[in-house]
């Protein structure tokens, strides 16, 4: 890390939106060849700052210098011209094109007869090679890759445009440990080529593993800039939230074992359920007041199993008993009417409806359950909405705002409210804490425990094994679309022991173990 001139310097940046001061005199510096992490809670202004730097928002006050020269960024093309490229929270690529076409999009090699595809693909594979992704075949369709690898493809794209600054907004939120390591390898290679990387992540471990420098924002204000080794975790967190929270203590603690033995008849019992390509035959019991964690790598079948329970995908074999009675759950609507709710991991595509208001998003579940012919009376609706907005601490608590304008954590809370409003007896939460900040995460975790205490049966799915271990009473371990183990939680159960279980299962096929490019079938 050379203390040379910053490639990007943003000084005293302010941006206001109607009613909100999103950024208030924020400073930010980015040096070549460093990974600089932007830290802050949801709504602290991280995304706004990034959007100012990428030309999406115009700044109201302050100045942006790129390579020392004052620069006006009026639109994303200005930012790209200045050598700033971005990989967003959710991947924006063309999944129907090949990997090579995606890497080279807009920079195809041209010959006398239009695009020279062979040369284009060769150039693409050179770029991939340089980033340690030489295994990828540039002619394979992008859709054949896992989300994680797609993201790496998106990053390689910014190499092609010879970016000096690379912005990675929450690139790790959907990755498992292996994939994160792979991403970090790519990031380090880029850093060694003097690319300045602006990184945003909610995972503290990752932040400390990769970043050289930190800038902390709180409520749109600049809290400070630190060299990573000089700021320990607890002081970082207290700078982010502005106070020392006792809650945070519990976040670091080992599994808060909720000494619950569930011997009563299960509310949900699946026998031999399966679906081709999704889940191989398995049995599953869920009890009232119990938190069952699904653990496994990305693509192990966690989500697929959840979707089977909810009827989002049809069960092909096996049977399901609910409250002792045989039932046929073949659609989300039928699951809801049986008081099963499912919050998808894919908040953007399968959760919120972007253009509807917070209120409409919140009541959608209840309304769907009632059917369109029986609208919720106005008064009841208002009471319901304001109750959940307050209860779940949604900010801003404005029911008429379009939900797309809320931060990720708040969108997640609204979705949680949507499901809670349907009064579920079985609640399946797929990655409810992904991509949201520590504060909101703690709130959601506490809520999950409270719900279980009220007798709701909860299925909790998370890529963060620590979180699964901390919350669950029982953990179902999945691997390659099979259930490989089921463990009652206890002091001996740790994230490491779960990982060992996964790793040691079927040790005979060692070839699969070192295949760190894990593709979802």
């Amino acid at each position, binding site marked *: 890390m050379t203390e040379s001139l910053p490639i990007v310097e943003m000084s005293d940046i302010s941006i206001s939106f109607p009613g909100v001061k999103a950024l208030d005199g924020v400073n930010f510096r980015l040096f070549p060849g460093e990974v600089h992490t932007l830290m802050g809670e949801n709504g602290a202004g991280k995304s706004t700052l990034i959007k100012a730097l990428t030309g999406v928002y115009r700044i109201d006050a302050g100045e942006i210098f790129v390579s020392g020269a004052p620069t006006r960024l009026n639109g994303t093309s200005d930012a790209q011209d200045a050598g700033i490229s971005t990989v967003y929270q959710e991947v924006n690529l063309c999944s129907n094109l090949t990997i090579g076409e995606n890497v080279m999009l807009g920079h195809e090699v041209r010959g006398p007869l239009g695009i020279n595809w062979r040369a284009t693909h060769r150039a693409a594979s050179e770029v991939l090679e340089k980033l340690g992704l030489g295994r990828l075949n540039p002619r394979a369709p992008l859709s054949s890759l896992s989300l994680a690898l797609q993201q790496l493809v998106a990053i390689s794209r910014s190499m092609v445009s010879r970016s000096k600054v690379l912005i990675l907004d929450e690139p790790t939120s959907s990755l498992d440990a292996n994939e994160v390591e792979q991403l970090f390898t790519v990031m380090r290679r880029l850093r060694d080529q003097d690319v300045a990387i602006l990184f945003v992540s909610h995972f503290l471990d990752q932040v400390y593993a990769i970043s050289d420098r930190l800038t902390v924002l709180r409520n749109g204000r600049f809290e400070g800039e630190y060299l990573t080794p000089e700021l320990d975790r607890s002081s970082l967190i207290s700078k982010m939230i502005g106070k020392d929270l006792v809650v945070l203590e519990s976040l670091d603690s080992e599994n808060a074992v909720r000494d619950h033995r569930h011997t009563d008849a299960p509310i949900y019992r699946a026998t031999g359920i399966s679906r081709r390509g999704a889940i191989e035959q398995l049995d599953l019991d869920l009890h009232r007041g119990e938190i069952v964690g699904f653990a496994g790598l990305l693509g192990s079948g966690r989500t697929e199993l959840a979707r089977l329970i909810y009827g989002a995908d049809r069960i092909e074999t096996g049977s399901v008993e609910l409250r002792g009675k045989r039932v046929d759950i073949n659609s989300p609507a039928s699951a809801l009417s049986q008081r099963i709710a499912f919050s998808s991991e894919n908040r953007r595509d399968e*959760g919120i*409806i972007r253009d509807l208001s917070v209120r409409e998003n919140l009541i959608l579940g209840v309304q769907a359950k009632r059917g369109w012919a029986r609208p919720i009376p106005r008064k009841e609706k208002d009471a319901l909405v304001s109750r959940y907005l307050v209860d779940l601490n949604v900010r801003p608590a404005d029911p008429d*705002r379009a939900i797309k304008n809320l*931060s990720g954590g708040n969108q997640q809370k609204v979705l949680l409210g*949507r499901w809670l409003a349907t009064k579920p007896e079985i609640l399946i939460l797929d990655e409810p804490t992904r991509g949201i900040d520590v504060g909101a995460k703690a709130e959601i975790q506490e809520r999950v425990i409270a719900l279980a205490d009220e007798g709701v049966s909860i299925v909790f799915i998370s890529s963060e094994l620590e979180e699964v271990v901390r919350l669950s009473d029982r953990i179902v371990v999945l691997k390659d679309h099979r259930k490989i183990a089921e463990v009652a939680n206890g002091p001996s159960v740790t994230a490491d022991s779960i990982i060992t279980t996964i790793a040691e299962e079927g040790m005979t096929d060692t070839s699969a173990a070192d295949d760190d490019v894990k593709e979802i079938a």
Partner: protein
Amino acid sequence: MMSDTTPSIGRWFAELARRQYFWGIVAIVVLLLINVLKDPTYLSISVSPTTGNLVGNLIDILRAAAPIMLIAVGMCLVVATGGIDLSVGSVMVVSGAVSMEFLHSASGSVGDAFLAFGLAVLISAVLGTVNGVLVAVVGLQPFISTLFIMLAGRGLAKVITGGQNTAATNDSFRWLANGYVFGIPVVFILALLVVIAVGVLVRRSALGLMIEAIGMDPKAARLAGVNRRGLLFTVYIFSAVLAGIAGVFGTASVMTVDVSRTGYQLELDAILAVVIGGTSLAGGKFNITGAVVGALLIATLDKTVVFLGVSSSATPAFKAIVIVVLCLLQSERVRQVFRQRRASRPHTPQKEVIPA
């Protein structure tokens, strides 16, 4: 040019000007003004001394707008689900054929008029169900499914009438299209009532919300428990029934079904009316009032073309030009150009108001 006058005319007008269908209203006014330039008495409405009914060009426009209003409202709902219904014109002719064929062999009683109307609506609902099955159950694209009914429908009408343009006499049935209540054409009153009923139903129940949800994001809506299949059925049947009523209106005015002309290309008018009204063909948010404004504009345009004596061969081109201009005025990009020329206010971001 027009926008310069907005600030002075008060808040109501400013509110109206922000609506998508504002330019539709402007276009209607402009077309009427053009007609007035040609004939200063164009807008005058008189009371017919013999019948006590209102007579005038405006009344004619309302009468002509009635069927378009009906199919436009149905189309509006279908479009909001992310679909399209190309079959409405053909459903109109089938409905007309069925009612005429029935009345042709029946007596001229009021009861028969009711029966004819009921039959027409019934057969339309059946056609709508076919659309619904193809779209919601089979999962064909709405364009193809309804294109199929569009082609088959006209054939079916010919089969029903044996290829004839069947005519019939039934005064009650004729009254539907040509009668007056309080001096206003029955057909317009009925269309308006149906439209208002649909509007109230859609907005007071949760139907509107559900339709928007599946139009905006079918995956998320399904996972939220919204019954997409049932809704699509409802909406396509709705659209067909409204088209069936429009078909009755269309044939009752002349008491003849013209198997090749009745409802011909009216699906295009309906789609245009919906778009003019500010409902995006991509689905999602819809605007029934807008669709009605669009229908009124189409009717005004049709009358204007005739009144100005544009040759019939040039009529489609003339219509197209007016509509293209209108769509340009509505497009976000063109509006932005206007806004930038007008405003010196500081820039505020359009989207994503709250920082994440």
